[in-house]
């Protein structure tokens, strides 16, 4: 009985496997986006002061949402693969151009602390009427434009150090389950420690309401 039910679940990813045709692609994109935007706004990510609280210790909502999402998705993917619901070799793995991506992350870190948003969260800030969200998004546009215009200057750097579409397992030989396990432990530890930090820091902050 169980086996029959399991077999009725189509092997994903559905669109690459032709189970859902490409015509549905954009409908799915909008629906996924709506769910994404809803979760971001409902969690409080439409406020830059909530987001940056993660770095100053007064509100760790970003860390909680982000780490929970990563461990749920990681463990979920492994189970989907184990049950034969998804062919893990077909999913897109971000290529690792490590020097450029490391620099990109550092630049984004600066952007995060100055702007208080990341791209997705700034869109939801616009939805509820935040001018700072709109200005941040305008900045994104300018930043990408400036990057494109000056691209010849760092083209070689941008394309350097390509390790290919590699996973942590490809690089280390350690199985994905161990990485998922490690992430779960790290996340749970972080949830506990940040809860203690938050309690202490909040006593000193009066301007911000929770």
């Amino acid at each position, binding site marked *: 009985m169980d086996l029959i039910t399991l077999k009725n679940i189509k092997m994903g990813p559905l669109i690459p496997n032709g189970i859902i045709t490409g015509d549905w692609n954009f409908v799915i994109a909008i629906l996924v986006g709506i769910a994404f935007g809803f979760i971001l706004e409902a969690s409080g990510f439409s406020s830059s002061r909530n987001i940056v609280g993660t*770095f100053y210790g007064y509100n760790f909502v970003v860390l909680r949402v982000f780490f929970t999402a990563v461990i749920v998705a990681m463990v979920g993917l492994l189970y989907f693969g184990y049950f034969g619901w998804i062919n893990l070799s077909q999913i897109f793995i971000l290529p690792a151009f490590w020097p450029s*991506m490391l620099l990109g992350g550092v630049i984004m870190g600066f952007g995060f*602390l100055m702007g208080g*948003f990341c791209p997705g969260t700034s869109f939801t800030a616009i939805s509820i009427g935040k001018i700072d969200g709109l200005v941040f998004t305008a900045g994104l546009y300018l930043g990408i434009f*400036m990057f494109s215009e000056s*691209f010849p200057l760092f083209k070689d750097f941008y394309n350097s150090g390509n390790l290919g579409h590699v996973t942590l397992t490809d690089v280390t030989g350690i199985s994905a389950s161990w990485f998922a396990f490690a992430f779960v432990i790290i996340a749970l530890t972080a949830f506990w420690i940040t809860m203690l930090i938050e309690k202490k820091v909040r006593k000193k902050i009066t301007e911000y309401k929770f």
Partner: protein
Amino acid sequence: MKTQQKNNYRPNYINPYLGGVLLGLLVLLTVYITGRGLGASGAVKSTVVTTANAISPTLAKANDYLGKFISSDHSPMYNWLVFESLGIFLGGLLSGIIFHRIRKPWVEHSPKITSKTRLIFALLGGIFFGAGSQFGRGCTSGAALSGSSTFALGGVIVMLAIFGTGYAITWLFRKLWI
């Protein structure tokens, strides 16, 4: 009276762990359906490509970077991430309506800085984030969240670099926030 009310206002956000579980399930579902995760900066990139191409097609095609994303059979706006980002805006609107958070346009900032300072740094932050997301092959959504969730080395590098840098430079920008 009004200020008093404003100061006592506590937004009713959902539990962050519930938000995280929902977001994780959404990443999982999206990968199950499309074979890829979520994204956000890609839509802004498509907008840059489209406007550059509209203003000067010759220059846009000649640009080493933008030229890669121009195709003769469809507009760069006809792209999965553009539709998804439109959805992000609509989803934010929906949540804003449900939880009564929609207001007339305003600038949120720490009481210790002015609106003008906030907006200048919001613009600068956007510029940095936009440029950084191109070096990083994605932002917090596409690279850090979806990349790490699929065990991609690149995703983990971007995640650690964003948050590591964020924590390393808190002192520099503290006056903007606390």
